[in-house]
């Protein structure tokens, strides 16, 4: 996996520091040259960590909205993907306002970012969730060495981290911490908002499914909305045969009802199971090598 940016250049053409607040304010904050150098080092460290992860675990997987994420996992998402819309906005925003007074609102900080431009004019945006450190702000718990003695710091303090949670180049997102990506880019709201759009694509392949009942259910249930996004992204609804699907619904005890015009209505009680089935998360065990029965996979990846 390559980065569409010259990350090895210790002196990019331009480095900006900015912060994002919980109220969706995004602004640039003036910094000294030393801070810019520190941001470059952070971006370089992040890329080193991603490369190391890739060398150890193979090529990065594509971000899957229905997957349960935890810890470091190198995942990617192309910038033109609908799920990357917020990240794309962060990356392509021009003329961001300059708000040095935002540092007064450190406790409201959601994330901070560095924006870099290399000598070829390519842009890289690196974002880090403002984490636990802000919890210690204004609490007399921080120590600093003054001369040869430790003293309490009772002023607002902000500290840069060692690496970013994700890098965005002009082609794609390189995500190191998928959970932080989801929080920063407010993926839950984005996925809920994308339910109609995802259904538009899915029902083209399964026109016999009652769209409205799925849409109403998924609009209220974030988990169902995630399954829909995943089904669309992975193309799991393509080439679905109606008879085979109905047989599978019977086998998995998914309650369905067929209207006079042949449209299949899935009951709300079993809607989540139906979507899990389409999202390839239900499977049967047996085959003489393990217990027989029906199982649910919390994680899965395509082998071929």
């Amino acid at each position, binding site marked *: 996996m390559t980065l569409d940016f010259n990350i090895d250049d210790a002196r990019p053409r331009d*480095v900006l520091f900015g912060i994002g607040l919980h109220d969706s304010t995004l602004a640039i904050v003036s910094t000294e*040259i030393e801070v810019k150098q520190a941001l470059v080092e952070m971006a370089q460290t992040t890329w080193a960590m991603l490369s190391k992860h890739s060398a150890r675990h193979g090529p990065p997987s594509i971000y899957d909205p229905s997957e349960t994420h935890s810890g470091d996992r190198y995942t990617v998402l192309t910038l033109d993907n609908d799920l990357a819309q917020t990240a794309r906005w*962060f990356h392509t*925003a021009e003329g*961001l306002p300059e708000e*040095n007074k935002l*540092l007064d609102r450190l406790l409201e900080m959601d994330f901070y970012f560095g924006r870099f431009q290399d000598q070829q004019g390519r842009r890289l945006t690196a974002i880090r969730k403002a984490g636990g450190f802000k919890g210690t702000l204004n609490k007399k718990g921080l120590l600093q060495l003054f001369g040869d003695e430790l003293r309490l710091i009772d002023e607002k303090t*902000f500290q840069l981290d*060692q690496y970013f949670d994700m890098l965005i180049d002009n082609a794609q997102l390189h995500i190191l911490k998928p959970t932080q990506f989801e929080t920063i880019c407010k993926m839950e709201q984005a996925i809920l908002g994308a339910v109609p759009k995802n259904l538009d694509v899915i029902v083209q392949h399964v026109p016999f499914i009652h769209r409205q009942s799925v849409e109403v259910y998924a609009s209220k249930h974030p988990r169902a909305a995630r399954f829909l996004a995943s089904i669309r992204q992975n193309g799991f609804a393509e080439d679905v045969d109606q008879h085979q699907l109905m047989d599978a619904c019977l086998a998995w005890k998914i309650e369905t009802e067929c209207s006079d015009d042949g449209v299949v209505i899935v009951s709300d009680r079993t809607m989540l199971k139906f979507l899990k089935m389409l999202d390839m998360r239900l499977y049967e065990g047996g085959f003489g090598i393990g217990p027989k029965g029906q199982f649910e996979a919390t994680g899965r990846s395509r082998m071929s």
Partner: protein
Amino acid sequence: MDIPAHSLCDNAPMAKSRYADCLGSARFLMVLSSLSPLFVLWAIRGNDLVRDRWFVSICAAFAILPTIALWWRIRTARKAGEKRLIQVGSVESRRNDVLAYLFALMLPFYPSNLEGWREFAATLVALGLVIYLFWRLNLHYMNLWFAVFRYNVVAVIPPPSDNPYSGRDEIVLITHRRTVHPGESIYAYRLSDTVRIEAELD
């Protein structure tokens, strides 16, 4: 992996006030610098109420120090690499503002003489009003020195964008270019929230 953590501001409130106030005072000093010809004219004209030695010194200080501060601000922005990329959507010339500038320079001269304290006080109040207006209306980019160094001043309006985070504010660009065309991208140093000077030498 042993990675050093970096501290952005060991003393954030200090850093905050330094930057925030620095640009606020930079804007104020730019206003004073833009009115430096007025202080030169006052120094030449003199005043019967205040001894020449003091009056000329004060006027000279007001004429020179803010301009030095402006030069210092440009130097600081260059040194800190405070460059910003300006995307040009459309451009408006700011030459018409010269009339307002000349009018502002002449305004404190409305009394026929400064022999009485009341006329002198009225002149100072008029000057205060001019400074306030320049400050409030962001007219601090008008400066004789920019003309002396053959700079042009244009207002740049960003291109329309469906990105909700993109800025929509007009930026005043001080540049050596004779014309600025829509669609161009220009790197500029930040002098104040609304004024940039093109980074030409980097």
